[in-house]
């Protein structure tokens, strides 16, 4: 962003929006929007409480287990779909359907199947993340240079070697893109899970604060969530850029 000919550092626009928020907050137009500084103050207060730490660790645990399972299952399934026509035709309609389906509507079914606990929340999180990871890994494999596959074959690569030394690496730029979007969707999944299935973690805090009109607290938790999601997404985008150099040059 440029202002009066000066190049501003990245994300300076956030400062501008923050100032605007602060200003609107002080005008006391609505109880819904307290000043940003007051929210940060509240955050400092509740940030060290046991309740908050517990909520953070509960949410973090469900999030990490959910996304890791989505990655561990999603990437191999996507690669296999890209490699094998039969598996692809078998699974692709389901993947596409679940990708666009309103998964929130499925949560009650998950509750019936897996109970009202952590397990159902983790599965909800994984379900939000996994489909885009599968689809991206599949897309990555589909555009692999055929010569690379033939090369590995001609030098006697076993299927396992081909999978880990060719397919995975050749598809890595797309895989990382899918993981990044999957993580963002998983943030949604874990909160929806915590709101609908059992009132724990950040979901419980949202419920508690909004029901009691504690807007400063509400916004404080939301900001923490935004910041975490943003950091994860940026970190994955950084990894993606590190392998992007060969995404465009996979024909070499």
């Amino acid at each position, binding site marked *: 962003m440029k202002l009066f000919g000066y190049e501003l550092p990245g994300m300076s626009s956030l400062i501008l929006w923050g100032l605007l928020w602060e200003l609107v907050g002080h005008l006391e137009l609505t109880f819904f929007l307290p000043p940003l500084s007051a929210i940060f103050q509240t955050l400092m207060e509740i940030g060290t409480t046991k309740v908050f730490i517990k909520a953070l660790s509960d949410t973090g645990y469900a999030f990490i287990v959910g996304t890791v399972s989505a990655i561990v299952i999603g990437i191999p399934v996507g690669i296999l779909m890209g490699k094998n026509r039969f598996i692809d035709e078998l699974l692709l309609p389901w993947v596409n359907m679940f990708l666009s389906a309103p998964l929130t509507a499925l949560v009650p079914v998950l509750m019936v199947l897996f109970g009202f606990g952590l397990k159902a929340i983790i599965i909800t999180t994984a379900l939000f993340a996994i489909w885009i990871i599968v689809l991206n890994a599949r897309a990555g494999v589909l555009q692999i240079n055929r010569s690379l596959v033939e090369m590995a074959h001609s030098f006697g690569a076993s299927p396992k070697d081909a999978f880990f030394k060719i397919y995975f690496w050749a598809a890595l730029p797309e895989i990382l893109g899918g993981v990044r979007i999957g993580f963002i969707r998983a943030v949604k999944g874990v909160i929806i899970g915590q709101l609908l299935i059992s009132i724990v973690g950040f979901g419980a805090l949202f419920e508690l604060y909004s029901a009691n009109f504690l807007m400063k607290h509400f916004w404080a938790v939301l900001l923490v969530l935004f910041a975490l999601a943003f950091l994860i997404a940026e970190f994955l985008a950084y990894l993606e850029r590190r392998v992007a150099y*060969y995404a465009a040059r996979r024909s070499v």
Partner: protein
Amino acid sequence: MSAKSQNTDNAVSVRNVYKNYGDVQALHDLSLDFPRGQLTSLLGPSGCGKTTLLKIIAGLLPASSGEILVNGQPVSGPGPDRAFVFQDFALLPWATVLRNVAFGLELRGVVKSEREAIAEKYIADVGLKGFEHSYPHELSGGMRQRVGLARALSVDAQVLLMDEPFSAVDEQTRRKFQEDLLGLVKNENKTFLFVTHSIEEAVYVSDQIAILLPRPSRVSEIIRPSGFRHKDTDSIRRDSEYLDIVDKIWSSLRTYVE
């Protein structure tokens, strides 16, 4: 012909090979011998099935019927007796030159220190010393193909299969490659199978040229240049036999060029 071919020493023999893609007949009853220690070119207009034949010999494509013999033994898949050089180089973009060259050995389970020592030798042989830790995208097209060549040499296969290896590099590099290839055939004691669509290139580098004609593909003629093979690389292009053969091949191929 079969009696004669059993007497001479052939590294690769193609026996009555057919290849069909659905109703399309790509190769029709094709038989051809590749003498050991020599370079044989497969030359023909596009669509004549020369790359298909090379990939069948490599074991990358199955033949619909017929037989491929390598050292007298029938083969049905890739094997350590053959190494392939790809038209588009087929390098791993995420791996260094060193790992790319050693990759064939890596797949064969050679331990790291040993395969890297071998790879370093061949990297130096193809003139890429100092680029061991570069990545393919940092190299020119010609240098990339040298990496592909070093990879094929480092597995020490007796038969080198080259699929239009110089078609993606510029003209000057290509001439240099052709000269280097002559040195390689002389010194490496390997059998080279070389697919090209360039008449001059085929005549320049080959001990034997198999002209393939399309629809359906068969070997129409085998030419063995003899007079200029011992000459030095500079004077071949001015040799009268060289020029005659180029003319002769062109006159038989021109009717197939639309």
